[in-house]
């Protein structure tokens, strides 16, 4: 099975984020990590390869710093990587991101014929939950979202989809296909020392902005303003040492909220 995994680099969960000068994006001088659901998509791809043979390619669109998530993926066992490298990829809307990825894996830039394309169900930065689905539309492939189980069958794929409130559904589909993967589908592996060494020898193909630009269009949606959200409630913030805070909190619950 030839599998493509689309992964993204996002600010680290604990990174304190600040707004840029015109309040349309964050200041980029923070620590980054791989988008969590994408890590699960990669793990699932590696497991499928181990079971059924084949090859795993990872792709990302982002600045030079984003090559870090590709190197980590190679260290975990991916075979090769594609980096759409440019700062401008950061501010593309989902449709244009999907167009850029599609262009990088299709003629004339390449003629990879992937059996399966997987990606996380959404990113921790934008959270639009669209890129995977749009990639399927652009490539003319069927897709399925929020997948928490993948089983390869003779005819294609037997998949478990998560639905709301503890509901599930099995679906069947043929390959090639695009799947968006839910966090928790598997247990993530760590890169081994040997893996990290081997990663250095693995091929990483760079794709420039100019090579895909003709496939992009103007963003059809725009962030006008980014800001710290207004509070929906008046929150009573309690100060002090752990002991003091605990005392004040319990007092509040007893006398103000009257819940204990």
């Amino acid at each position, binding site marked *: 099975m030839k599998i493509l995994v689309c992964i993204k680099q996002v600010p680290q969960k604990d990174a304190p984020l600040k707004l840029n000068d015109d309040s349309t994006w964050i200041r980029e001088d923070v620590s980054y990590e791989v988008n969590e659901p994408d890590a699960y998509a990669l793990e699932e791809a590696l497991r499928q390869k181990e079971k059924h043979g084949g090859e795993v390619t990872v792709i990302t669109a982002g600045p030079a710093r984003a090559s870090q998530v590709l190197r980590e993926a190679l260290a975990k066992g991916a075979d090769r990587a594609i980096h759409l490298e440019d700062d401008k990829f950061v501010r593309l809307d989902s449709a244009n991101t999907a167009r850029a990825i599609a262009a990088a894996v299709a003629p004339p830039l390449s003629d990879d014929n992937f059996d399966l394309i997987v990606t996380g169900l959404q990113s921790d930065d934008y959270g639009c939950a669209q890129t995977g689905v749009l990639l399927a539309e652009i490539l003319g492939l069927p897709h399925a979202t929020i997948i928490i189980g993948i089983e390869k069958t003779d005819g294609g794929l037997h998949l478990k989809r998560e639905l709301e409130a503890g509901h599930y*559904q099995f679906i069947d589909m043929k390959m090639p296909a695009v799947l968006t993967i839910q966090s928790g589908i598997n247990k993530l592996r760590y890169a081994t020392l040997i893996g990290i060494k081997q990663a250095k020898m693995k091929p990483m193909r760079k794709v420039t902005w100019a090579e895909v630009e003709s496939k992009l269009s103007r963003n059809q949606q725009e962030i006008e303003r980014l800001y710290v959200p207004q509070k929906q409630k008046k929150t009573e913030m309690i100060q002090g040492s752990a002991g003091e805070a605990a005392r004040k909190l319990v007092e509040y*619950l007893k006398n103000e909220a009257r819940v204990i």
Partner: protein
Amino acid sequence: MADSILVVAEQREGKLNRVSFETIAAAQAISKDTGWPVEVVLAGNGVSALAQELAQKAVAKVYALESPTLEAYTSDSYVYALKSFISEKQPKLVLFPHTYQVRDFAPRLALALDRTLISDSIGYKHDGGKLLFTRQMFQGKFAADVSFAGDAPWLATIQIGTFRGDHAEAGSALVENVAAAVADSPARVTPHEVFQEAKQAVDLSQAEVIVAVGRGIKEQKNLALAEDLAKALGGEVAASRPICDNGWLPLERQIGSSGQTVAPKLYFALGISGAIQHIVGMKGSRTIVAINKDAEAPIFEIADVGVVGNLFDVVPAVTEEIKKARAGA
């Protein structure tokens, strides 16, 4: 046709998804600002009765968009039918509830129409004639006002719980049955029945006090801290998704969009950041207490009372105070 708002309502297996009324409420609010009348479309097979139910709201019209291919949901049949329907009606704005089903087909539908979808909106603004949708970014640490840069129809999805379905204005509209466009080729995904995993042993929706832990708890053995607090309060332990994904607590104790929805008298969020998918499952709680080391964690936006601190210090101290208070009472 004149500018209008089209709400794409949702049903699954012959049952109306109640969040459809939230989206109608959103459309009614936008309609007040823009003057655009609201219409509703419900896709399915034999859904006239459900469309009648939607028609009890103050909307201009409800369309039952029907075909046997829409009996069970597939993205292919939905995209095909709705693309044709929307192309013909040319509404200014198309609104969907941000459900799993909508996440599955709406992006594709937007691109098939050569339009864009602003997903997961938690509000809107109508600013000097410009329509903006507000959505969370960076896991709720920031909000963004997003505008449409291209031509209508504009598509947007509305997060669950943003508008109140029971506030949707009542009225009486006409239902029109429309035969849906059907593709020549069959859907490429074969869906099977929707099911639930084994019956739940606990019913958290009945609990008066819930102590929920998140990834801040770090290790499974630290759950004892939450268990002690829950015991002192006579409450139940629950968790955010990553805790259940790790298998530290059973799925039936997961709170949020893919887990349980609860509204206890008292909800403790220990080391939970407050992602929207968690919030939708607990924001109806009467008193929400958040303990988090990050003063900027989004959970504080909906908490009634908050302590910024290390939960490993604060939680045991709270448990002691509760025990004292109980002993004194």
